Structures are given as structure tokens and as C-alpha cells.
């Protein structure tokens, strides 16, 4: 699979960046609070989509369990917020414990009193969990479809676990964050939300550059090598297990950050983040945007979610049909996603079909061969 990069001149790139930054700074004043909040949430989902793109688009590992790491990040953030604003409740512990008659803080809550620990926990804990899970799975050369199924199963394990533990983390109800305090302000308040929007926008850009840096150079080449022909990478003397584990934990960390940002902006974290459909949705954002193109992942996440909220407002029942249709359409007709299609020969082929552009002479046999090679 080869993507021809869109060649933009330096000037255009500069203008695009200025426009983006201007929009980010101005967005809170242009958009109504409700829309701003939605946009912020979708931007935070873009970060998890970047992670999915790293492991799926570049390394060829289709994980259906990113929801685990997403929710873990969310829980870390929510636990910190709950515990810092629990001083007015009995026993100095978050309110919900009272409902189940728990008097002492469970031990694993204790470290979340420290803001620095929590700030690290948000991405380190999901990355560690991902690394461990990934190492166990990759070590046995479980791959392809089996990997997907196993990640899905682990997702269910975590979902059932979090769902069942009322006394430890409030089970199904989840942890609310919008009425908690941060820096002496309500997290759900308007000014705080504006802050979070800026933080999210900044982190999306940062994550994008980070991901670009990861896939550049030797490391990125090995990842792509693993995707295209893993035995060959192994026979050349590299150990794919290490690289897969590293990239999987990077994706886990990104998912954690994303989950934390999503949690503070949506006001609650609950086991619903770990349902199977949500994790599969993440994959479809990337698939629609274009896997193997980082920008595609971001755009896919934002636009699909935006479309989802618009369609659900207008015709609640039809979103499932549209989403299902989208899955099938993307997989059968646009396997490289919208951005991949644009960067590839898509538009030219379309124009050719209508006779608008002259057909370029190529070696037919070569073209057919590359097609076959892609099929795997």
C-alpha cells in the first residue's frame, strides 16, 4: 500500500496552520456552548483514533479493545477529581461510597490524592496495561483475527469487572465529574469547559506530531514491515514482539489521554465506555478517514461523530442504518478510506470515467500485479 503525499507548498501549509490555530482560539466565542462541548469531545476522540491508526493502519493489528484503555484513562481522571472534591462528604471519601456502606477508601484510590501522580496515571496506567496484554498476546504469535477476538474478549472482561464492582468504583453508574472541583472551579462550568477545549485541541495537534514522529524513520518502517510481511521481518533478525508491544502501549497511552479528556468534557465516566460497539466504532472512524493516514484518523473521528450527532438529532432511528451502511461501503468500495482515496488515484479515476481527464498510459501488467499483492 503506497500513499502519495499531497504536496503542499510551504506557504499553503503555513496558511492552513494559521487558519487552524485561529479557529481553535476563536471557537469558544463563535460556537454556542453546547456545540463547543461536542466539538471538544470529538477532538478528544480523535486522539484515540490516532492510536488506532498507529496499531491498525501502520502495524496491521486490529484491536477491538481500545475501549479498555480509553475507559481506564477516564477512570483515572475521574478518580482524581472525585477524591479532591470529597472533603465535604463523610469520612473524606467520595459520596457514592456512602450508598454502599463503605467507610474506608479502597487502597488503590489512595495515590490519586496526588495531582502529579494522577496526571501521569492517565496515560501510564493504560499504556502499562496495554503493554502487558500486548506482550502476553504477541509472545505467542497470536495474530490477525485471533488478536482481534482476544482484545474483544478482554474488553468484555474489563466491562463486566467494572460493571460489577459497585463498592470499588460505583459499578454501572460510573463516576460523575461535572460537579467536582478543579482549581476551585466546577469542572462542568463554562469557563472550565472552554479551558478543556483548548487543552484538547492542543493535545490533538501534539499527538498528531508525536504519531508522525513515531512512524517516521526506522521504527516506522519496521512497523509497516510487520504489517505487510511479519515472518520476513522476523527472519531478517528483528523481534516483532517488542515493536508490537511498544506500539500497542503507545496506542493504549493515547487512548488513556483521550478517555480522560472525553470524561471531563462529557461529565461522567462509566463502563459504557467499554462496550463492544464503541470500540468497533473507533476502528470505523479510522477506516472511513483512511487508515495509514494520520490526518484521516483525526478527520474521520471528528466528522463521523459530528454527522452522528446531527443525524441522531434529526432522525434517531436511521443512524444505525447509516452507520451499518457506512461500514459496508467503506470496506467494499473504499478500502483505503476517504483520504487514502483522495491521495491515491481515486479522483483521477473518477474523472476518467466521465471522460474529463486523459487516461495515463501505464503498464497494465504491473498494475494488476500490485492489486493482487494488496489482497492478502
Amino acid at each position, binding site marked *: 500500500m503506497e500513499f502519495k503525499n499531497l504536496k503542499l507548498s510551504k506557504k499553503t501549509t503555513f496558511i492552513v496552520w494559521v487558519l487552524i490555530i485561529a479557529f481553535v482560539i476563536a471557537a469558544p466565542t463563535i460556537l454556542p456552548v453546547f456545540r463547543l462541548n461536542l466539538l471538544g469531545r470529538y477532538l478528544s476522540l480523535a486522539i484515540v483514533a490516532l492510536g488506532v491508526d498507529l496499531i491498525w493502519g501502520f502495524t496491521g493489528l486490529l484491536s477491538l479493545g481500545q475501549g479498555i484503555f480509553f475507559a481506564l484513562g477516564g477512570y483515572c481522571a475521574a478518580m482524581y477529581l472525585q477524591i479532591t472534591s470529597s472533603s465535604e462528604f463523610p469520612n473524606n471519601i467520595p459520596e457514592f461510597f456512602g450508598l454502599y456502606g463503605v467507610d474506608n477508601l479502597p487502597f488503590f484510590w489512595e495515590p490519586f490524592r496526588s495531582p502529579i501522580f494522577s496526571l501521569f496515571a492517565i496515560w501510564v496506567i493504560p499504556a502499562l496495561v496495554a503493554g502487558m496484554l500486548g506482550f502476553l498476546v504477541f509472545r505467542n504469535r497470536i495474530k490477525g483475527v485471533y488478536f482481534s477476538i482476544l482484545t474483544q474478549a478482554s474488553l468484555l472482561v474489563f466491562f*463486566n469487572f467494572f460493571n*460489577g464492582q459497585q463498592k470499588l468504583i460505583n459499578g454501572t453508574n460510573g463516576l460523575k465529574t461535572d460537579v467536582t472541583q478543579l482549581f476551585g472551579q466546577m469542572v462542568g462550568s463554562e469557563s472550565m469547559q472552554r479551558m478543556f477545549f483548548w487543552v484538547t485541541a492542543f493535545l490533538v495537534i501534539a499527538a498528531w506530531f508525536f504519531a508522525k514522529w513515531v512512524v517516521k524513520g526506522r521504527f516506522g518502517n519496521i512497523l509497516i514491515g510487520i504489517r505487510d510481511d511479519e515472518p520476513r521481518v522476523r527472519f531478517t533478525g528483528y523481534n516483532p514482539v517488542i515493536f508490537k508491544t511498544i506500539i500497542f502501549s503507545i496506542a493504549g497511552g493515547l487512548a488513556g489521554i483521550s478517555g480522560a479528556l472525553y470524561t471531563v468534557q462529557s461529565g461522567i465516566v462509566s463502563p459504557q465506555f467499554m462496550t463492544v460497539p464503541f470500540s468497533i466504532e473507533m476502528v470505523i472512524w479510522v477506516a472511513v478517514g483512511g487508515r495509514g493516514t494520520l490526518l484521516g484518523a483525526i478527520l474521520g473521528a471528528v466528522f463521523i461523530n459530528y454527522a452522528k450527532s446531527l443525524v441522531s438529532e434529526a432522525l434517531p432511528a436511521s443512524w444505525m442504518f447509516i452507520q451499518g451502511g457506512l461500514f459496508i461501503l467503506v470496506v467494499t468500495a473504499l478500502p483505503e478510506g476517504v483520504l487514502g482515496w483522495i491521495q491515491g488515484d481515486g479522483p483521477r479515476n473518477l474523472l476518467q470515467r466521465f471522460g474529463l481527464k486523459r487516461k495515463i498510459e501505464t503498464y497494465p501488467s504491473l498494475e494488476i500485479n500490485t492489486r493482487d499483492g494488496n489482497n492478502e
Partner: protein
Amino acid sequence: MAIGSVLLVAALGLAIVFGLMGVINLAHGELMMLGAYTTYVTQLIFKVPLLKPYYNAYVIVSIFLAFIVSGVVGILLEKTVIRKLYGSPLETLLATWGVSLILQQFVRSVPLAYGTGLVISLIIGLFLPATFPLKIRESINFKYFKFSSWIFAALTGVLTGNLISSSVSKLSRASARNVDVTAPAWMRGQVEILGTAFPKTRLMIIIITLISVIAITLFLNQSAWGMRIRAVTQNREMSDCLGISTEKVDVLTFGIGSGLAGVAGVAVSLLGSVGPNVGGNYIVGCFMVVVLGGVGNLLGTVFASFGIGIMTDLIGAGRLLSIWPNMPLPLSNTINFFATTSMARVMIFALIVIFLQFKPTGLFPQKGRMVES
């Protein structure tokens, strides 16, 4: 045991589809749901005065109907979507997930009566051309016959849809609520075997399972098509070279796999209420069974599904404690911690993941010397 049986039938279908064609069918759960709804619709239709005397037989009828309905939907799925995606399992996974979303929403927002009509027209449209005499089929104008048979099918579908919706009022409105299938009188109550009481419905489920396992084994091992299917499983290219129509084999396999999902759906409907989401509860369990049992191996599937079913029961209901009353305290505490249905699933999945550490290819792996498949 009953859960194990349901898993077995469903996983059997999945194992066939997955093992043979390398297709991950996430819509399998929704095909089960279709089977369950078929049971429900059959039950209501059998309440119509004309069929009332035969009401007690509806379960038996619905098994066959469910097989046909799910099978036909499966074949349609294969012909439209999956055919394009052979050789790329991850893509089929996404596409079938899309299909499953559509099926779920379809059940929610389309009245069941018209759904039935649609399914009937599909059945007729797909099979009517095959019933024409060979002479007509070979003539040049056959595509017109095909076309007209689809028109005929559509008309029949609309007619039956209207007929059902006018005669069974419950089916004429769309609803997302769960529905209940009531077992006929002869299936209620309990039977005593070896001093323990078993509900009759569960026994029935186990019998259905046994019959389908035996039937499918016989089919695969004794019939000509079964042999072709096995041949394609072992080496697709070679079978193709030897003149086996792999395309037909694919359609057939997918149809059978989906049909088995439908039969599993009948069993599900006997266990509890039926809703649009019923399939999702089973699908991951099915995949676990297939992975645990080893791909393309029926014996492994049988062992794995009963293993999982029994373990879930043992852990979930805390039966271990009653079997071994005076176990050490820390152990019994752990067991009590896991003694709910959801925690039992956590435990089972964790055990499976640990098990796969030691035997990554399942209980009964296929032997071979390939570097990668």
C-alpha cells in the same frame, strides 16, 4: 448445560464458516436473533384459528423455519458483501459488524409482519429460478425468467406481509421491546432424571443440539457436498483445480453456518425473552468457543462449548463451594467474589486467555508445517 448447548449450536455454525472460509462473521449473533424472532412469529401465526389445532407442534416447525430464514439471509449476505472480501478477514469483520447493526435496527423499526413478508420474498426469489426445468434454465432468456420470478417473489412477500399483519395484530407494529416465547404445554414442567429435576425446555434444547451436531457431522462426513466442503477447508486452490466449484461450496457453507445460527436462535428464544440485542450476548462467547476449540475442528468445538457452559454454571452459581465445602478460607473468599454471572464471565475469559498462553492454537490444533497461514 443448556447455555453450553446453545453455545455449541451457534459456535458450530461459526466454526464451520470461520474454519472453512476464514470469514469472521460478527453478524452471527444477529442471525441467531433472526432465528429467535422466527420462533416468535411462528408461534403467533400458529395461534390463528386455522392452525390452532397444531399449536403444540410450532416449536418443531420453527426449528426448520429458523434454519431456512437464517440460512437465506446468510446466503444473501455472502452473495452481496462477503464474496468481495475473501482473503481479508479483518475487513469481513468490519463489514459483518455493519450488517449486524443494520439487522438490529431493522428488527427495531420494521414491523415483524412485513419483515416476514420480506424474508419470504427473498426465499422465493433465491430458490424459484432453481426449480425451473433444466431446459428453460439453459435457454438464453433465462435472465427474464429470473427477473420475473423476483417480481413474483416481491408480490408474494407483500401479500403475506399484509395477510399476517391483518390477522395477527401483535406483529403489525414495530417495537424495540423484548418479546417472550411461551413454550407449548408439553414442554413445560420438569422431568426427573437420576434424582435431579430438569426443566423440560432445557432438555429440549439439549436434544435439538444433539440432533444438529449429529446431522452436521453426518453431512460433513458422508455426503458428497460434505466431502467437497472438507476438501476446500484443507486446500482451496487444489480443490479448485480438481473441479470443485468453490463458489458453490462457499455459498453452501455460509448458508449452513447461518442456518445453524438460526437453530441456536430457537434455543435462545426458549431460554429467555427475545430482543434486538439478544445476539450480542452470545457472539463473543461463540468466538471464545471457536478459538478455544481450535479452528476447523468440530470435536474441539463440542468440548470447548460444554466446558465453558459448565464452568460458567459452576463458578457463577458458586457450586464449587457445595461440592467442596471445607476448602481453605482465602480460596473460598475468592470463589465468592466471582460467584455472580458477570464475574463468572470475567473469570472464564481470563482463564481462556491464560490457557491460550500455553496452547495458542486451541485444544485440538490442526497440524501443519506452515510458517504462517
